[in-house]
């Protein structure tokens, strides 16, 4: 019947756990599969930078002991999981007394804010454009204009970002190029600060929205065209319903369901892309922090952030999954059928 069934929630929750397990395990396993180990690699790089490090072997041993890398691999794995569960990743190596988790949680709101705004905008604009493009009754002038909104679809976010920075920030000097806010303003809930944050967010958001909305539009167009051919769509026309009712109630309402699934599946890609956007715009979110952690070989922060991003992605997908049965009454039924 309608709404959430226990079975469905349980199924989705297991899926959620599986995703987190898979992602975190990848992060744990792959470095260990590689020739050499993280510490030797790190020390190796340090000695490359410094030219020569005294007692490199001893340093490696002591670091390994500190990170517990001398234990057998399954012990390491269980310890790692304990840490992931308690969100305890130890101290940051590059900003010593700070805990890795603190650095990460400072960065998280920036990323979440930026990405939520950008995703909501690009999804809703894209879906609107796509629905109109896939509907036979859309006015002709609109159908001629709409495809032009897909112009930037093929360009990756970050390249578009670089060009935006060059044109809008440096050449025209309209908007700030990098950062989340200027040093001049006092962080806090005051108007100048909020205004400052918003102006800094414009370029990153625009570069994500303009380059990703076309994908949604194209997908939605295809879905809408299929719905156009459905029998219930035809019956709605024959019933003499008003075009707007047919469009929303029979068209968009049905076509959007697979698009929402695609949104859940596409979140991973979106979040991946945002790392580069944050890098290009030096935006102090998780992506940028991850980049800096990697550059400064901050092992603990890297792990913390990677796990956090996987956690956030999986959680958003899980939430979307929980919402889904309310939007599609067939869902529990369909799962049984498949």
């Amino acid at each position, binding site marked *: 019947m309608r709404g959430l069934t226990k079975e469905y929630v349980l199924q989705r929750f297991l899926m959620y756990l599986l995703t987190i397990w898979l992602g975190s395990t990848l992060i744990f396993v792959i470095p260990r599969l590689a020739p050499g180990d993280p510490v030797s690699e790190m020390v190796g790089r340090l000695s490359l930078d410094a030219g020569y490090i005294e007692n490199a072997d001893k340093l490696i041993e002591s670091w390994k002991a500190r990170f517990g890398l001398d234990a057998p691999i399954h012990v390491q794995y269980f310890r790692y999981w304990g840490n992931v569960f308690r969100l305890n990743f130890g101290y940051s190596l590059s900003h010593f007394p700070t805990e890795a988790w603190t650095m990460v949680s400072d960065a998280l709101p920036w990323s979440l804010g930026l990405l939520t705004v950008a995703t909501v905008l690009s999804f809703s604009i894209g879906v609107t454009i796509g629905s109109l493009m896939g509907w036979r009754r859309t006015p002709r002038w609109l159908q001629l204009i709409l495809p032009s909104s897909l112009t930037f679809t093929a360009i990756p976010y970050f*390249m578009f970002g670089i060009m935006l920075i060059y044109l809008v920030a440096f050449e025209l000097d309209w908007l700030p190029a990098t950062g989340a806010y200027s040093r001049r303003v006092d962080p806090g809930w005051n108007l100048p600060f909020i205004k400052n944050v918003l102006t800094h967010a414009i370029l990153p958001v625009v570069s994500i929205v303009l380059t990703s909305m076309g994908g949604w539009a194209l997908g939605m167009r295809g879905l809408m065209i299929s719905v156009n051919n459905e029998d219930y769509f*035809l019956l709605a026309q024959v019933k003499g319903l008003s075009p707007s009712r047919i469009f929303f109630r029979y068209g968009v309402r049905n076509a959007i369901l697979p698009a929402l699934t695609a949104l859940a599946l596409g979140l991973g890609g979106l979040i991946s892309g945002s790392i580069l956007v944050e890098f290009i715009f030096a935006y102090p979110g998780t992506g940028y922090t991850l980049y800096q952690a990697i550059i400064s070989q901050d092992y603990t922060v890297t792990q913390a952030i990677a796990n956090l991003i996987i956690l956030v992605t999986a959680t958003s997908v899980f939430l979307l999954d929980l919402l889904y049965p309310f939007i599609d009454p067939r869902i529990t039924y369909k799962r049984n059928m498949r």
Partner: protein
Amino acid sequence: MTVGQRAADETTTPARGWGLNTWDSPWLNFKFLLGVAIVGLILLFGLLGPLFWDTDLAYTGAGPLNKPPVWQEGGLPEHPLGTESNGRDMLAQLILATPSSLKVGFLAAIIGMGIGMVLGSVAGYVGGWWDHVIRTLSDSAVTIPALVVLVVIASYVQMTDTTAMALILAAFAWPGPTRLVRSQILTLRERSYVRMAHLSGAPALEIMFVEMLPNMLPWLAASLTGGISVAILGATGLEVLGLGPTRVPSLGLIINQATTNAALVRGLVWWWLPPIIILMVIFVGFFLMTIGLDEIANPRIRQFSSTRRERTAAGELPAVEHAGLRGGEEEDAALEVDDLHVHYFTPRGEVIAANGVNFSVRKGEILGLVGESGCGKTTVAMAILQVVQAPGRIVQGEVRIEDQDLVSLSGKELREVRWRDLALVPQGAMNSLNPVTPIREQMADAILAHENVGRLEVEARILGLLNDVGLPERVIEIYPHELSGGMKQRDCIAMAIALNPQVIIADEPTSALDVVVQRVVAQTLLEVKERLGVSMVMIGHDMGLQAQLVDRIAVMYAGNLVEVAPVGSAFSEPLHPYTQLLIESIPSIKERKPLNVTEGLTHDLRNPPPGCIFQFRCQHVEQICRERRPELVEREDDHLVACWLYEPERHSLIELEEA
């Protein structure tokens, strides 16, 4: 099957073989070919570049620092695209970097596709536990943000060359193809020609490669080109972050060096812009290929855009010529179809689905419209309802209810007539109810679109209607998927009589149901008709069922009406050879007779032959049949037929012509 698909079935056949060698091939898609050309040019630049330019200049200290391109002030001819802060020549760097970026993309996507095809086939073919595991794994793998994991990996593993990077990227490229191959196999497995191959005992691998692969090819290709650009994007992302191979030149690495050296602020445009431009061109190329392939794989998209173009060219409204003379106008007709021509404008020619169809439905009468599938009866129904699907169009004719020609009505006027005067009981009751809204809402919106009544009254009326068709009241708040096929069909009947229409079109109302349910639905239809005195057009191919339900019967063959007669004389004394064939083929329990199926296909609907359209299958064909088309003429009382056999003068007619 939806109505759109049924109409499309009249024009398309499944892909057999690779289909690449014909000029008529769907692969000649403009977007796809343009994309191939763009990527090809970029590849040529990378491959042929070293023959014309000294690529050693790509390394540190090969030239002066920060020189702009030659067309700018201070540019040097020996460094046509300028140099960067380490004195490396930009042109040489780009020549070396381009093919390596492409190589990573191809390699990673092809490996991912290979893994995906194996896993997807196993999941789709073997099914069961395997399917479950593979599906769950790929579903969760696809939600993991790949670049995050990649970045972490790259920070530990020094990627020395592009092959290593491609291998790591491939680990993230398999879920997409896996899901695609699995769902394609599940869909294709249900197609009749694949089932046939199964039944004939062909081995699974042969079915996979001979029957399925050609049909999956456009999808796979679209997934591959999409995968390549995603892989290039991933690789470039790592390079831009400085985490790719640092000793091999790559486009992302150039961008990384430019941004870390503040090329943006310093105005060294020629440093960061060219790699971005090349990458953008590559992405645009693959993007065009992907959407081109999408159109090849999903012809509806192509049809959709081509009809739009056609409509733009021809002006908004279809040009309809009105038949001047109102020939068969009858006094007591509820619905008149007059000289109706419907053509499908396919890329391979105009398919004539209805060719001058003339008939009328009298008040309170059920007219049966019969014929084999593909004969155009569904097209006629859709034309009466003014919902002919693109690429089809009513090119000529009138459809009149109460002296109002529906073909020439404007959208708003038509909306008023619809459902109030002309309702539909659809064929696919399965798919005719909006799956996401409860029954109440679907019935209410039909009423509310035409009458201004309050919520309470609507509710009461819906309950009354459900009662009329024998459905329990609780159906009102249920979703369609919770109803059985027969219940859905009865709900459709309830909906059709909601506004007490003049005419109901019933499009094979019982064909998808099992026999017992068929009875119930047919009974419901008859009751409703008796009570409301509504006129009906009953479309179907089941002659036995028609015999019990209809008052008059109209037989259609290849877009033409060949016989219209009261049901009694049509069955006792069928005139047209095709009608005779149809009636002979009704199975009977009392006498076992040989199944009499005439071989021979319907002619190509794009080029109807001169003369009678049934000539290739007719046993009585004569000279005149091949030369002149017989008209639908009343030969007996109220019994019309289009056949030369009943024209006593036929011999003198050709002699006349020959003379």
